């Protein structure tokens, strides 16, 4: 795992986002074990307390669950998993709309371009 | 206590190699000295008696009998002993400064040991004392070796055998380190310990206050000497030798004790509150 964090957003928030992306992409599967907080800190080169904080938040959001003393696992809850995917899509779309609106481009014009560009980059294998 | 033992052991080992070399030089020089001096004597005797036909009696009248007294005051013996003595005096100071000025500042380690810091002081003092005892013990053994060598090389009729005590007396003032009685032992080494603790305190004053500390150290040293000789001074200057020798000794013991205790207490305070790395 090699993630580049920025210095201005809370690191724990960035860690959670990283996990959500991995879940949405399917790199992390439902029920898959995740590293301990110490391992995670080591892998991401972050403070163990931050890793702990991220896991705590994720547990509260239902993204991960822990049974007894076993390692934590990615949730199997379909609703949550779908939610994650939807959340990321919505975020991307919102960012997109914000950028497009700021330069005042009509939606139709943009949508055609989006379709074209998206297909092209799929073909080139860029996504 | 176990840790103190380890600390002494550690301090002892840090100078041990150099110490061994010094002792080695002393032993070699002393044995060579005995061999050279007594062989010279025998050669002279042979030459006088066989070539110049001098009688045994006449030869001994002119040259004296061969004994340790011929060799004791020679440089063969005195020079190495003086070197060892000066080295130990020097090391009494260096034993502290090496921890600050050495390549890796070891004083950090010593001051961060989970023991009372005064035990670092005590370990260093013990080390100096052990080295001194070691030197004396070796010399006492060497006296026996020397006597035996003389017996082997010099025939009975030319030789005058000395007791260990007589041999020590040929050393003059260096003989002071070889006490004859338990009381002398206590006095000599008690004094030695006081000197060591005063010097250590002076070093710690300098190490705590640096430039200003040099002044404090000189003042402390002067005060220690003054307190120590106070009974003698007062007896001569104020009391017109009113005190009996026994009373004077008791007064001396008291002031010596004061100097020792105040040095240890001051060092304890400096090590805990004022020392700088």
């Amino acid at each position: 795992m090699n993630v580049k964090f920025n210095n201005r957003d809370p690191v724990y928030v960035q860690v959670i986002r990283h996990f959500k992306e991995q879940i949405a992409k399917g790199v992390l599967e439902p029920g898959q074990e995740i590293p301990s907080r110490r391992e995670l800190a080591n892998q991401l080169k972050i403070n163990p307390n931050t890793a702990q904080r991220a896991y705590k938040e994720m547990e509260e959001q239902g993204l991960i669950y822990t049974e007894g003393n076993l390692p934590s696992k990615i949730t199997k809850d379909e609703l949550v998993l779908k939610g994650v995917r939807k959340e990321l899509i919505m975020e991307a779309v919102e960012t997109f709309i914000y950028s497009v609106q700021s330069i005042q481009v009509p939606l139709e014009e943009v949508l055609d371009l989006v379709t074209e560009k998206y297909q092209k980059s799929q073909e080139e294998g860029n996504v | 206590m176990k840790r103190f033992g380890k600390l002494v052991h550690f301090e002892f080992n840090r100078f041990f190699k150099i110490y061994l070399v010094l002792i080695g030089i002393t032993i070699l020089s002393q044995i060579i000295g005995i061999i050279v001096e007594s062989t010279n004597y025998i050669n002279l005797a042979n030459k006088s008696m066989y070539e110049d036909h001098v009688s045994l009696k006449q030869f001994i009248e002119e040259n004296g009998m061969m004994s340790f007294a011929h060799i004791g005051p020679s440089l063969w013996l005195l020079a190495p002993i003086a070197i060892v003595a000066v080295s130990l005096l020097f090391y009494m100071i260096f034993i502290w400064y090496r921890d600050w000025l050495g390549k890796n500042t070891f004083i950090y380690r010593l001051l961060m040991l989970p023991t009372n810091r005064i035990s670092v002081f005590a370990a260093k003092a013990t080390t100096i004392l052990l080295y001194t005892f070691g030197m004396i013990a070796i010399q006492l053994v060497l006296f026996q070796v020397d006597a035996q060598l003389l017996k082997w090389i010099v025939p009975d009729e030319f030789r005058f055998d000395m007791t260990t005590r007589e041999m020590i007396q040929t050393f003059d003032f260096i003989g002071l380190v070889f006490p004859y009685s338990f009381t002398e032992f206590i006095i000599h080494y008690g004094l030695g310990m006081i000197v060591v603790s005063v010097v250590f305190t002076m070093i710690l004053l300098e190490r705590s206050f640096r430039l200003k500390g040099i002044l404090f150290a000189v003042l402390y040293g002067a005060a220690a000497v003054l307190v120590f000789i106070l009974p003698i001074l007062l007896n001569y200057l104020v009391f017109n030798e009113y005190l009996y020798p026994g009373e004077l000794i008791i007064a001396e013991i008291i002031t010596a004790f004061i100097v020792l205790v105040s040095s240890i207490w001051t060092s304890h305070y400096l090590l805990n509150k004022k020392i700088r790395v």
Partner: protein
Amino acid sequence: MIEVKDVYKKFGRKPVLKGVSFTAEKGKITALIGINGVGKTTIMNAIMALTPINKGEILINGEKLHKGSFEKITFIPDAITMLPSMKIKDAMQFMDDFYDSWNQERANELLSFFRLKESDKIADLSKGNTAKVNLLLGLALDVDFLLMDEPFSGIDIFSREQIAEVFTSHLIEDRGVIITTHEINDIEHLLDKVVLLDNGVVLKEFNTEEMREKEGKSVIDVMREVYRS
């Protein structure tokens, strides 16, 4: 917790610390940052009673430093403090002889983590390896608090990476760490807390995550604000 309370310190007539106060908690990594020179090391020396202070108080877990404290708190100066003639194993033996808190298992783990040979003489080690041995000797003590003076300076980048790795590993466990540093590139994400010092006073003390969360500022942002104003 280590509490530094209103500490003043002069070198001769020159004041170095002018009323410094801050705290460092167990389980957290606190960085003492100062861009110019003196003060940081003096604070560490003062905590360990290696230099006297003129005023103020320093408490470790609520009590003043005493001989037993050295089993609870240790200081790793910026240069190794073992004799050059010692082998690594002699240095470890020395620690084992004097500290109840010496953890030989952890020492061995650190030896292999840093890829050090215990038969090597300290005088013959490279700069990076000397720094690692220095660190090892402190880290292998089961203490609550570790003070490290500039653990990242003056060594090659790979040694630096390896040392940074220690901070995120179990080798630190849940101990409290105070490090001094003058540049925080590469290590920003390792810190819980930052104390910014200048001219003998604390200009700002903050939690890094809280600062990011509430004000959206990185440590360097805050440093820029504080030191430039």
